[in-house]
């Protein structure tokens, strides 16, 4: 009687420990960014970042201020502002995930909203550009993530899901000059 109770209790404890280990989130899960999904044209607001993606364009070449480069390029036009504080409010995280690969916004255009400073409550508008391989523009699923820190852990990320394959491909796209919105 006692013996089988102890065996049963022991087994139950082992199963409980195993179950606890199974449901404990790992570090990556515990530090995951807070995703704010938003549609093109809608305003998404996170901890200290409010973004409206006004348009997404695909082009063979990108140009601005006398700089031009062959791509293909994906150009994201957006308006962005800080929400609480100007302190460290720069659009430092801009990535595009397509088919398991992550692309980072290009540092090549001389004028871009990527890594630009934001102001509280007064949106700035401009573009960010992604230099991509051909196959990425033919894919059906892409996620654009925008955030304030290059390391996105534990902060909000404004995320836009879209279909690159449905975009009209133009020959050359000019990035918007960065400035105050409207």
């Amino acid at each position: 009687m006692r013996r089988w109770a102890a065996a049963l209790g022991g087994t139950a404890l082992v199963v409980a420990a195993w179950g606890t280990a199974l449901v404990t989130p790992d570090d990556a899960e515990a530090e995951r960014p807070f995703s704010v999904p938003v549609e093109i044209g809608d305003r998404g607001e996170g901890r200290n970042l409010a973004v409206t993606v006004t348009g997404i364009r695909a082009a063979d070449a990108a140009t601005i201020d006398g700089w031009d480069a062959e791509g293909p390029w994906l150009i994201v036009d957006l308006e962005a502002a800080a929400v609480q504080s100007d302190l460290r409010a720069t659009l430092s995280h801009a990535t595009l995930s397509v088919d398991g690969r992550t692309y980072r916004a290009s540092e090549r255009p001389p004028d871009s909203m990527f890594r630009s400073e934001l102001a509280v409550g007064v949106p700035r508008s401009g573009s960010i550009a992604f230099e991509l391989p051909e196959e990425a523009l033919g894919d059906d699923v892409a996620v654009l993530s925008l955030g304030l820190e290059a390391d996105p852990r534990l902060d909000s990320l404004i995320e836009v899901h879209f279909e690159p394959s449905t975009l009209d491909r133009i020959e050359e796209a000019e990035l918007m000059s960065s400035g105050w919105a409207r």
Partner: protein
Amino acid sequence: MLAPVGEPQPTEPQAVPKRRFRWVRAAADRVPTKWVAGIGTGVFLAVTAAFGGLETVEAVSLPELTAGEEHRNDQLAVTVKRAVLIDELPEAGVTVEPGERVLALIVDAENLWDEPLPTTPGYSLSSTVALADDPEAEPEGISRYDDTTENPWLQPGVLATIVLAWVVPADRHAAGDELRVVLNDETLFTGTAVISGQYWDNPVPAAIMALDIEDVGAGRDVAEPDPGAGE
């Protein structure tokens, strides 16, 4: 064998080895203890000699590539196209003092990983391409060949032509000299404890190539795209 006559024959199987090796014990007992060190030294020397003695071990020979041949690993596809000696190259982010010149490698690089790779010192291309004469010297300037963006990021699957620049004493190299370049492979590590994410490190030489150095004098053509730049 050496078993003395008259000893009873063993009936159990286990007793057989005991009897068979008895002579070893007997022989060992006759060896004076003083000999042991000598015999040990002799054995050690014989084994050393068998493996080539104290001769310097020949370095593992790396595959030899020629200019324009691609080297591929899990991180990058790298093609070193030209080696150029130039008076100065501010576009690549290097400044020279009097008596110095710039040695530049023009390299096609494609990121084969699924994350963007920085080209800042210590990462990706700067750890992958090294000069055989001075493998510890990382390039002092790294920029794109087409629009001179400094320390550009390599996007997955996107080919980029990059200029790697070293400042060298003006008399170290001359036009037509052979420059030996080592291409390293790095290993992907996953950060633990205070390091998060994955990173490439631990460069190990994987290929070597010899290029003829071109001297372009004060030439401007290195920093500006030529018709064959995008190939």
